[in-house]
């Protein structure tokens, strides 16, 4: 076997299978998807009519979709802020010489290993039955709210479960980064007489910048693409007030059989996600330059 043959042979063995599968599973559907977004395809019929930009014009005027965009944006902003604040707070406490920090870390991480779909069903029971009975016993107003019954509380129900689920994961990343901050910095800060607050704000935070970027974008991406939890906890209700973009795309395609329109929404969704990712790449690069 000559050199060229053996090069091609290696390419085929090492890359061939992956390349083939990736093309069939990701690239082809992606291109087909863009194509379908210009058609009136309903998922079943064989003849597909091209209708130009009609679907995209419909998407922009689609009241449900715009509502979903707004809901997803509010949900993302709120859950990203709250889960990162809690995660960072926990990480700062759990890197101190306290008893049982390892056990605490395990407890706070635990919700994360369970499927979002199952968590939604579990919390459905807690919001409907569990909270109501705690409310009866303690008479605390918080537990007596009709949690899944009104627009405002359903929104917060999703936020509560999301914080409960994701904070532990983010905490783990913050903990690992905080533990990497050189000990000499703390010793120097102590000698200089800085307070705990000053040390955290002016010494630790700049040192863990990379963790901020990773955690914030990770939680944005989870929240923005929320589906399972939405599907099982609120099902988008009450009165379609809590439908995320991902759930709206699903409903458009599989409940109403508007595959073409659903795919157009999905492409808009892709563009938004890609835009967020571009900001992430840009801000990661900027951090690296500074560091």
């Amino acid at each position: 076997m000559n050199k060229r043959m053996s090069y091609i042979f290696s390419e085929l063995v090492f890359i061939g299978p992956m390349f083939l599968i990736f093309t069939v599973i990701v690239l082809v559907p992606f291109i087909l998807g863009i194509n379908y977004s210009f058609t009136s395809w309903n998922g079943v019929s064989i003849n597909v009519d091209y209708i130009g930009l009609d679907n995209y014009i419909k998407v922009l005027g689609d009241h449900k979709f715009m509502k979903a965009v707004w809901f997803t944006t509010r949900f993302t902003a709120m859950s990203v802020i709250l889960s990162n604040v809690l995660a960072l707070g926990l990480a700062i406490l759990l890197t101190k010489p306290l008893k049982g920090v390892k056990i605490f870390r395990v407890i706070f991480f635990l919700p994360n290993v369970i499927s979002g779909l199952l968590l939604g069903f579990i919390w459905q029971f807690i919001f409907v039955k569990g909270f109501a009975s705690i409310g009866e016993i303690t008479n605390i107003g918080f537990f007596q709210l009709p949690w899944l019954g009104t627009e405002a509380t359903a929104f917060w129900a999703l936020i509560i479960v999301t914080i409960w689920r994701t904070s532990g994961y983010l905490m783990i990343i913050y903990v690992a980064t905080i533990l990497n901050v050189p000990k000499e910095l703390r010793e120097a800060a102590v000698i200089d007489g800085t307070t705990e607050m000053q040390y955290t704000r002016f010494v630790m935070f700049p040192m863990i910048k990379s963790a901020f970027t990773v955690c914030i974008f990770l939680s944005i991406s989870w929240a923005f693409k929320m589906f399972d939890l939405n599907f099982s906890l609120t099902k988008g209700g009450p009165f379609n007030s809590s439908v995320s973009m991902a759930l709206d795309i699903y409903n458009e395609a599989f409940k109403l059989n508007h595959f073409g329109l659903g795919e157009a929404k999905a492409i808009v969704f892709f563009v938004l996600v890609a835009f967020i990712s571009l900001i992430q790449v840009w801000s990661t690069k900027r951090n690296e330059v500074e560091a």
Partner: protein
Amino acid sequence: MKKFRMSLVSIGLILLAIIFLSPFYFIIVNAVKDQKEILVNPAALPIKVTFQNFINVWEIIKFPRAFTNSFIITVFSTAGIVVLSSMTAYRITRVKSRFHQLLFSVFIASMVIPFQSIMLPLVKVIADLNMSNSYVGLIICYFGFGSPLAIFLYSGFVNSIPKTVEEAAIIDGCSTLGVFIKVVFPLMAPMTATVVILNTLWIWNDFLMPSLLLQSQELKTIPLEINNFFSMYTKKWDLAIAGLAMAISPMIIFFLALQKYIVSGIVAGSVKG
């Protein structure tokens, strides 16, 4: 003073830990109550412990079958992702060429695509290939979606392996594939652990993709069976809670047994991702 503050912090953490664990408390105590007792007082400890719920729901959600399906799909998908992406990452990182650079960029860029954006045509592609409603079709989809991140992680790792090790093996008469199998792949073990953990958590818990690609009852995974159950029995909380307890236990056991590795795997995976 400092000691006092620290014990206040500890008490705060303990309270928060109790709040974090309370959903599990609700599941455990209500799984062993009958329907009437659940409705009367879901927050209390059970008066009369019964395991009948578990026996009933074991049959309804076909737990052994659902567990086996989840297990087969998770193991084969994860194994495939490890093999395919470690080989690809090794080749495109070690052998520099325009094509490899382009390929790497395409893999990385594809991580941006949300599943919803390709799910509709994907269902059609899988149907056209005659692979819908089968383990194989679903597993191949996981190969496609799981590999880009794995390739990214492996590729960063390959750069940290000194080339001299491989050169020595080649001098000893190893083929390219031999070098990979005998020398490089074993060195990749820490990254393989990360890839296995991240993908196991994702695939075992995934709902949307299997729900679109698996229709027959025999193939349903645990999340699909539970979803089925909830759409059929809406108010049967006694069975539902026992079913949920059963459904979450494999992952909780998996996590508690391997928590050290899982936590460090996640850190390794996210710091680079």
